[in-house]
């Protein structure tokens, strides 16, 4: 798509300076950076950051799964703890 001539709002001879065209160009550039596995190759992490980071698809997925797993563990811990605690005895 030829973004320089895309917008009908740009006047003749002013396509390169048109704010709307520039915004479109930046939005598409951002989408390209954020897009899929081919963009993950540009990041070179080592250690635990290779699996848990907020840049690559796999890293983000692992962070999300780790968060859900932590919440599930906390809920499970409190449920089991309330079962183990004996009822208060009357004196």
């Amino acid at each position: 798509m030829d973004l320089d001539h895309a917008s009908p709002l740009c006047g003749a001879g002013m396509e390169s300076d048109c704010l709307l065209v520039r915004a479109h160009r930046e939005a598409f550039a951002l989408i390209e950076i954020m897009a899929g596995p081919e963009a993950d190759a540009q990041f070179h992490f080592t250690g635990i950051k290779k699996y848990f980071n907020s840049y690559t698809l796999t890293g983000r997925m692992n962070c999300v799964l780790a968060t859900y797993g932590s919440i599930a563990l906390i809920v499970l811990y409190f449920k089991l703890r309330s079962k183990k605690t004996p009822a208060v005895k009357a004196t």
Partner: protein
Amino acid sequence: MNENLFASFITPMMFGLPLVTLIVLFPSLLFPTSNRLVNNRLISLQQWMLQLVSKQMMSIHNTKGQTWALMLMSLILFIGSTNLLGLLPHSFTPTTQLSMNLGMAIPLWAGAVITGFRNKTTASLAHFLPQGTPTPLIPMLVIIETISLFIQPVALAVRLTANITAGHLLIHLIGGATLALMSINTTTALITFIILILLTVLEFAVAMIQAYVFTLLVSLYLHDNT
């Protein structure tokens, strides 16, 4: 007065039988079909309009997303025609009922999300964490994004219900005020009547825009998941 204000939103019954099924099915009678290659003017106009809307809406989708074209076009036609028919005096508008709008929003949203999880599991899960999030904020943002995902169908339904209901209520109120003012002050009644005309024009626009917004959002949810 209070009772009359919400009377138009009660589902109509006739001899104890609900008429709502007939009312929901009625708009389909207004869109004729034809098995001819060259049609008459009405059907040609209808086909041209459908092609315009479907081209604009489905252009962002890949092959998988475009399998939903029929569903989305039916949706926009149904909501648009129902909303516009509801602007007729003393008619019942099914899209003022939250139950109906939830019944449309939840299955469509769930279909899009489940399609995304089935076909692109990694990308769908990664969607819950915006790229570049600082590490300390990760758990909070995952929770926020999960909540915002589940809010989507509710927002979709409530948006349509609230917009159409509010418009109908306003027309009812301003129409009642115009009638009441006629015997008191004719000039004020005339001004109120002009406001009523402008509001009715606005409601025509809102009826079509809300249909478009509902369908567009479903289309965007689908685009994110295909």
